[in-house]
């Protein structure tokens, strides 16, 4: 028995010739697929986003509180001297820097954890995509785009939640006067800070696991069981 009776069309061509390389997909395609990924996995994505959101809410609340405290009138019930008041103010500032740093670390850990999970549980999908002809860079880009969307969304709502929370808390103390202690410039700066931190942390936390997953040979990615 020799080969098949007749040479069929699909097998006529030579395959696997060197020099034929897979091309990069246009960003638009990756964008569409990433957006769809979030849409379809809506609740799973929202849980990931919630991790980011809470981290950024904590950051925004700390920022909001510190803005209000730096502008509210100084209460001097104990009759302290100017020098003592200065010391008190400095101590408060140090405490706030501490709080903001801590909240950033908490956010970073939370976000990294969420994004690691989201990449790990999709190893098989990554392996399949590579079988279908996806380049490593496409896989990384897909995850970064998804992370970017989630980061922006979660940071925005996180800021809104945290900042309004801190304002409401301070309203118990100052009533409607609280609005006078919120210069728009500083609020805007807090907003930009929160958005940048949230988005950047989300994307940074995704790069490493996504890059590692994309580099695996497809066989290894397909084999993995989570």
């Amino acid at each position, binding site marked *: *028995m*020799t*080969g*098949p009776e*007749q*040479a*069929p*069309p*699909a*097998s006529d*061509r*030579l*395959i*696997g*010739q*060197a*020099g*034929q*390389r*897979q*091309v990069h*997909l246009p960003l638009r*395609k990756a964008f569409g697929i990433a957006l*769809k*990924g979030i849409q*379809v*996995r809506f609740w799973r994505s929202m849980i990931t986003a919630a991790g980011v959101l809470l981290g950024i809410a904590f950051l925004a609340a700390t920022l909001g509180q510190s803005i209000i405290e730096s502008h509210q009138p100084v209460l001097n019930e104990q009759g302290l001297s100017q020098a003592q008041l200065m010391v008190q103010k400095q101590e408060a500032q140090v405490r706030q820097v501490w709080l903001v740093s801590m909240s950033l670390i908490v956010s970073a850990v939370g976000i990294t954890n969420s994004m690691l999970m989201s990449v790990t549980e999709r190893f*098989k*999908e990554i*392996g*399949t*995509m*590579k*079988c*279908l*002809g*996806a*380049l*490593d860079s*496409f896989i990384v880009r897909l995850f970064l785009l998804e992370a970017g969307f989630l980061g922006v969304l979660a940071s925005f709502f996180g800021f809104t939640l945290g900042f309004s929370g801190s304002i409401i808390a301070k309203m118990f103390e100052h009533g409607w006067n609280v609005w006078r202690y919120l210069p728009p410039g500083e609020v805007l700066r807090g907003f930009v800070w929160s958005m940048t931190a949230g988005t950047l942390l989300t994307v940074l936390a995704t790069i490493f696991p996504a890059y590692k997953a994309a580099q695996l*040979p*497809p*066989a*290894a990615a*397909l084999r993995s069981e989570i």
Partner: protein
Amino acid sequence: MSNGSKNEYIVRTKGVVKEYTMGGQTLQALKGVDLDIRRGEYISLMGPSGSGKSTLFNMIGGLDRPSQGSVFIDEVDMAQLDAAELAYLRCRRIGYIFQTFNLIPVMTALENVTLPMIFAGTPSEEAAQRGIRLLEIVGLGHRFHHKPTELSGGQQQRVAIARSFANDPAIILADEPTGNLDGSTGTEIIELLRRMNKDRGVTVISATHDLKMVDVSDRIVYIRDGLVERIENREDITIHLGEMAGAGGLAH
């Protein structure tokens, strides 16, 4: 036997060895496999679990690199290809079918089938048209907007088969394609694969335990302990399949 044509063999493996290191110990999954597969053949790789047949499957499909030896696809050594060339090969020249279907869960049947075309740079509209045609061929023309979770196992595997044919590949690699399906659904899938093999002339290489699959093969390769134990032509063996009575007269 051989006509000596350079292109007679679509896949050739030469002394393929694959080693895994586990807990400080080196395990040889493949111990030097030599295998030549002809263009348009329907090949079954048989062997018990752990015999190395899945590893061999991965080597032939370019899903993993051998520790020693080489795999040639149309006389091109796959070890010579860089990542982008391998991706090109996987995208256009090889179609993969898995035991667990491996459809992308977030995409509809049609999107799954068109994904490899998008990776190949096919314009969306042309991809959609070709995708619908492929889904019609596998008998799912009416279900292309369904998500994998809304399809039965057999239907998911049909989508996977349509997807594997997306870029008109020369080789279809199927890893236990009927392993997760019931008997009659499995038979349908096997017949579909055989039909595609005959109609389109693609080479089908399938790792399997399924005797029904073996029954339609041109040759059966037995793998044991990481080596090719023996190779048999279909006509030289007898398979007794009680349940094959209604399977289109394929059985004896």
